[in-house]
C-alpha cells in the first residue's frame, strides 16, 4: 500500500539548535500513527513542517506520492491537511464560531455575499453548533461565546473540533488531550477512532503512553531530531517504548 504522506530527510535548524535532522515519516491510509519522544525531540517541528507552518531547510514531502512544498499553513489546509497545534492556535477575542471558520468563512448567497462579501453568520453558527454537539466534547451554551471565556479543556475541544470537521486527507494532532479531563480525553480518543473509520489517517503526538498505545496502529519514536524506530504497539510494552525514547535501550533494527 502506498503511503498517503511521506516525509524524506527533513532538516530544520534554529540558529545552532538542530530541531530536525534528516527526519523521515510515513503515514499509511486509514492508520493512526502515534509519535512519541522526549521534550524537545523535534516532534512539533516535524508536524509543523508537514502542515506548512515551518519551512524546512531541506528535505521533501510527498502527498499521495506527489511532491508538495508548503509556504504557509493555508496551502496544506487546502490540500486537506488539518492540524491541532500544541498551543491550539485559537484567537481568544473571537467567538467559537469565528474560530472554527477562520480563513474559510461561509459567505452569504447571492449579491450580498458575492459582491459585498457579507458573511453568513447564521450558517456558520449552525454548522459550528452541529459539529460541536456531534463531538459531544463540550457543553457549550453559547456558540458565539468568546474563546477567551472558555476553560482550557473547552478551548482544546474547539481546536480538535475544527481539525476533525475539516480534515479530508490527513488530521494531525499535537498533544490533543494535554488539557483535557478523563472524560474529555476519552471522547478525543473515540473521535480519533471515528476519524480513522472515515478513512482519514491521523498523526497523534502525545506524551501519554496509555493513550498512544490504545489508539495507535504504529508508533514512531522520535529522538534527537530524527526517527529512531517505528514499533508495533502490540509487540512492545510501554516501558520498552520509553526506554527507546530516552536512549536507555537500543531500538529494534528494521
Amino acid at each position, binding site marked *: 500500500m502506498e503511503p498517503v504522506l511521506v516525509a524524506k530527510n527533513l532538516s530544520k535548524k534554529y540558529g545552532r539548535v538542530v530541531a530536525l535532522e534528516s527526519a523521515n515519516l510515513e503515514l499509511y491510509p486509514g492508520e493512526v500513527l502515534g509519535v512519541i519522544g522526549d521534550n524537545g525531540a523535534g516532534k512539533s517541528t516535524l508536524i509543523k513542517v508537514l502542515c506548512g*507552518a515551518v519551512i524546512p531547510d531541506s528535505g521533501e514531502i510527498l502527498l499521495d506520492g506527489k511532491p508538495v512544498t508548503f509556504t*504557509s*499553513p*493555508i496551502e496544506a*489546509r487546502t490540500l486537506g491537511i488539518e*492540524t491541532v*497545534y500544541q*498551543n*491550539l*492556535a*485559537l*484567537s*481568544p*477575542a*473571537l467567538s467559537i464560531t*469565528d*474560530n472554527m471558520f*477562520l*480563513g*474559510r*468563512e461561509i*459567505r452569504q448567497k447571492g449579491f450580498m455575499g458575492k459582491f*459585498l*462579501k*457579507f*458573511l453568513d453568520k447564521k450558517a456558520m453558527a449552525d454548522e459550528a453548533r452541529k459539529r460541536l454537539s456531534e463531538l459531544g466534547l463540550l457543553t457549550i451554551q453559547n456558540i458565539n461565546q468568546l474563546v477567551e471565556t472558555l476553560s482550557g479543556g473547552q478551548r482544546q475541544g474547539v481546536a480538535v473540533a475544527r481539525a476533525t470537521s475539516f480534515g479530508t486527507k490527513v488530521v494531525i494532532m499535537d498533544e490533543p488531550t494535554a488539557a483535557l479531563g478523563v472524560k474529555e480525553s476519552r471522547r478525543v480518543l473515540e473521535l480519533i477512532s471515528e476519524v480513522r473509520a472515515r478513512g482519514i489517517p491521523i498523526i497523534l503526538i502525545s506524551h501519554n503512553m496509555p493513550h498512544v498505545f490504545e489508539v495507535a496502529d504504529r508508533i514512531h519514536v522520535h529522538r534527537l531530531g530524527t526517527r529512531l524506530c517505528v514499533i508495533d504497539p502490540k509487540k512492545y510494552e510501554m516501558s520498552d517504548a520509553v526506554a527507546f525514547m530516552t536512549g536507555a535501550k537500543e531500538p529494534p533494527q528494521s
Partner: protein
Amino acid sequence: MGIPTLPAIAVGMVSGIATGAFNGLLVTRLRLPPFIVTLGTWNIFFALVIFFTGSQSIRSSDIEINAPLLHFWGERINLGGFVFTYGAFLMIGIFVFLWFLLNKTAWGRHVYAIGDDKDAAELSGIRTDRMLVSIYAVAGLVVAIGAWVSIGRVGSVSPTSFYEGNLDSITAVVIGGTSLFGGRGTIIGSLFGALIVGVFSSGLSIAGLDVLWQRFALGCLIIIAVGIDQWIRKVSN
C-alpha cells in the same frame, strides 16, 4: 502643479494607499516594530512633503478659484437650524462602511484575529502579512480622505498642518477602547473616542484655557485612557 482637480484628488488618494502599504511592507517584510516604522516614515514623509511643496502654503482664495472641489467637504448645509459640513456626513459614511467591513466580512474577522495573536492567525490559515499590508493601506486611504476633508475645513493648505494628526487619532481610538495590545476595539468606540477628544479640546479652548494647558490635559487624558485599558485587561484575565 497644474494637474486638474479630479486627477489630483485621485493622486492624493493613491498616495495615501501607497504610503500606508509602504509602512505595511516595512512591518511585514523587514519585521520592524510597527511603532518604529511609524516614527521613521512619519519623519520621512513629512520631509518629502516639505520638499515637494517648497514649504509653500496655498491660500484659501486661490483654491476657491482654481480647485473648488477641494473645498467640497467643508461646505455647509443647514438642517433644521443645525449647520453641518458635508464632511460630517462623509465621516458617518466612513464609520458605517468600516463597521460593515469589520463585523460582516471575513477581512474584518481576520483583522481582529491578527491583532489578537498573529501566529495563531497564521496557523489558522490567514495570510497575515498580506492582510497587514492591506490594513495599513486602508488606514492610508482614510488618512488621504481626512486630508481632503481638512482642506475644506481649514480653507487653506499648509504642508505643516495636522502634522500631529496621527497622535490625535491614536489618542481617540485608545480613549474609544481600542487596545494597543491588539485584538480589541470597536468602530463605535472609536467614534466616541474621536468625539470625546474633539469635544474635550474645543471645550477647553472655548472655556479659554491656554493652549499650553490644553496639551497638558490631553496628555493626562491619554495616560488615563491607556491606564484604564491596562487595568481592564488585568481584571478580565
